[in-house]
């Protein structure tokens, strides 16, 4: 099975974020970056499928030159080769544009299965994988927790709301968007890191792929959430107060 995994580089979690002077993105020059979390699980799933059924894992990343770090990490963990659509300012494209870049690049690879993360940690649209599938004319399924190969295709487990799951069979080729936490991520071994240097990374560009930025959706403004400190005094008897407190903790703060 030839599996293509779309991976994105995003600012590290817990980064100290500052809104950029344009007000449309964050200052990311000095931010450390890492692989988008659900993508890490998608990659792991692909590597496990390859270990079970043989084949090839190709990592696909659209992003600036610095994303080569994330690509290298995927190769170090065991991806066989990679495709880098190098684009310094991915913000020029809307999500349709990014999906077009990925679709064009994916079409050249001709994979049996495409895995993406469920959503990205920075933009969080949760759409890229789905649009990618539409552009390629492939069936897709989202929020996937388990993938099994069958005679005719695959059987997947989807997460629904409220602890419900859905099992489906799908033909291949197909696109799946993968949920975080569904497997145990491996470390890149030092041997793997060394070997990654010798693996092929194909460089593509938006121009080369014939995709021009014509965004229909634009990001107008990013801002820090307003932090308002609120003090609420609960009236009533101790018993009433406790009941109200429990309710708040359960349904508003959601820590119970």
């Amino acid at each position, binding site marked *: 099975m030839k599996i293509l995994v779309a991976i994105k580089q995003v600012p590290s979690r817990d980064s100290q974020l500052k809104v950029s002077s344009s007000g449309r993105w964050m200052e990311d020059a000095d931010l*450390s970056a890492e692989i988008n979390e659900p993508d890490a699980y998608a990659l792991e799933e692909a590597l496990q499928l390859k270990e079970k059924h043989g084949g090839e894992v190709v990592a696909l990343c659209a992003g600036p030159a610095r994303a080569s770090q994330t690509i290298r990490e995927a190769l170090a963990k065991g991806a066989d080769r990679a495709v880098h659509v190098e684009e310094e300012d991915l913000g020029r494209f809307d999500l349709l544009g990014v999906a077009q870049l990925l679709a064009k690049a994916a079409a050249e690879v001709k994979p049996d299965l495409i895995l993406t993360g469920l959503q990205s940690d920075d933009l969080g649209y949760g759409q890229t994988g789905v649009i990618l599938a539409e552009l390629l004319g492939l069936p897709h399924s989202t929020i996937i927790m388990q993938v099994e190969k069958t005679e005719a295709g695959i059987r997947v487990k989807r997460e629904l709301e409220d602890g419900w799951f859905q099992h489906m069979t799908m033909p291949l080729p197909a696109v799946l968007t993968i949920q975080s936490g569904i497997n145990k991520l491996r470390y890149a071994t030092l041997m793997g890191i060394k070997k990654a240097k010798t693996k092929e990374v194909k460089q593509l560009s938006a121009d080369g792929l014939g995709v021009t930025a014509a965004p229909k959706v634009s990001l107008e403004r990013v801002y820090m959430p307003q932090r308002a400190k609120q003090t609420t005094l609960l009236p009533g008897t101790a018993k009433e107060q406790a009941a109200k407190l429990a309710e708040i903790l359960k349904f508003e703060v959601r820590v119970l």
Partner: protein
Amino acid sequence: MRNMPTFRGVDYLHLESLLNEQELLVRNTARDFVEKDVLPQIRECYRDGRFPHDLIRKMGDLGFYGANLEGYGCAGMSNVEYGLLMQELERGDSGVRSFCSVQGALVMYPILTYGSEEHKQRWLPALQKGEAIGCFGLTEPGFGSNPAGMTTTARQDGADWILNGEKTWITNGTLADVALVWARSPEGIRGFLVEKGTKGYSSSDIHGKMSMRASVTSSLVLSDCRLPASAMLPGAQGLKSPLSCLTQARYGIGWGVVGAAMECYETARHYSTVRKQFDNRPIASHQLVQEKLADMITELTKAQLLALHCGRLKDQGKLEPAHVSMLKRNNVRAALDIARTSRDLLGANGIMDEYPIMRHMCNLETVKTYEGTDHIHTLVLGERVTGVAAYK
């Protein structure tokens, strides 16, 4: 530890920009490993005085042992990459880093450098994977700083060697499948590979340590221990051979202690921003606290630069033992000072094992002593700049 944010390293001067992609990947793997596999258990291990055994094979699978060596399954990393690995491991615990140092720099390195092809085939792949454990026996009860005086002897009996003597303070001694024992032979100091179970060879653990509690430290006894001729490392002759191993290990220590210092500093820095005293102000707002933090971050950054520069020199083949002495001496001193000051900033909490500082501080007392005490490295530097040796 309570509510500490994810560890992102300590990098005041953008030193990360001096590292290449591969170096960062190595560091990230090691950091991740420490975060997920070391830190969750190290406090208990330290309390109980035991080494976290589950790490042995895992570190082998990841390529941590002899990472900067080439061949026989070793990862073939650069010395900077190896240094970053040591830094991250010691951020977890000096005992874990020591395990790796001994295995790689003090056992695999001499086998690779001084061993026969048979020694290499037999031991290196197994040591690399963590299927076999090694230890390094140089120190004796009567000879620590001055190993030249060692009294363990090796005499020839036909084709065999007979070893007699005692080694002490040996990291991993009772765990080891193979001990590299240094002994005085008629032709000078030589190294012998003594296998677990050899008649006349025994080991026992040293108890009561208040430092390096998550590391095994042992004594070895050799009592008419008969070894075949093939047990001797053919390439190692004279004290310079074990000392060359120590130079490798000390280099790693110079990086390792930076990790311990980063953990202490970061814990104290964060604590100072959340702990409030006097008018409900964070203690970080008091000038005396800021001075301590400013001193610590400065010394820490200098230690990082020294380690990185020495690493680059080592990769160019230009790092000399006297350079390594400066690295080891300065960085251990800096780390110990940072650990003590960090302990101070946490007040009473600083003495608790809920925070990592006291553990690191106690460990660093060992690190100051082993692999050449602070004094001995002072004398190396003194000799280097004056041409006069002051050891005697």
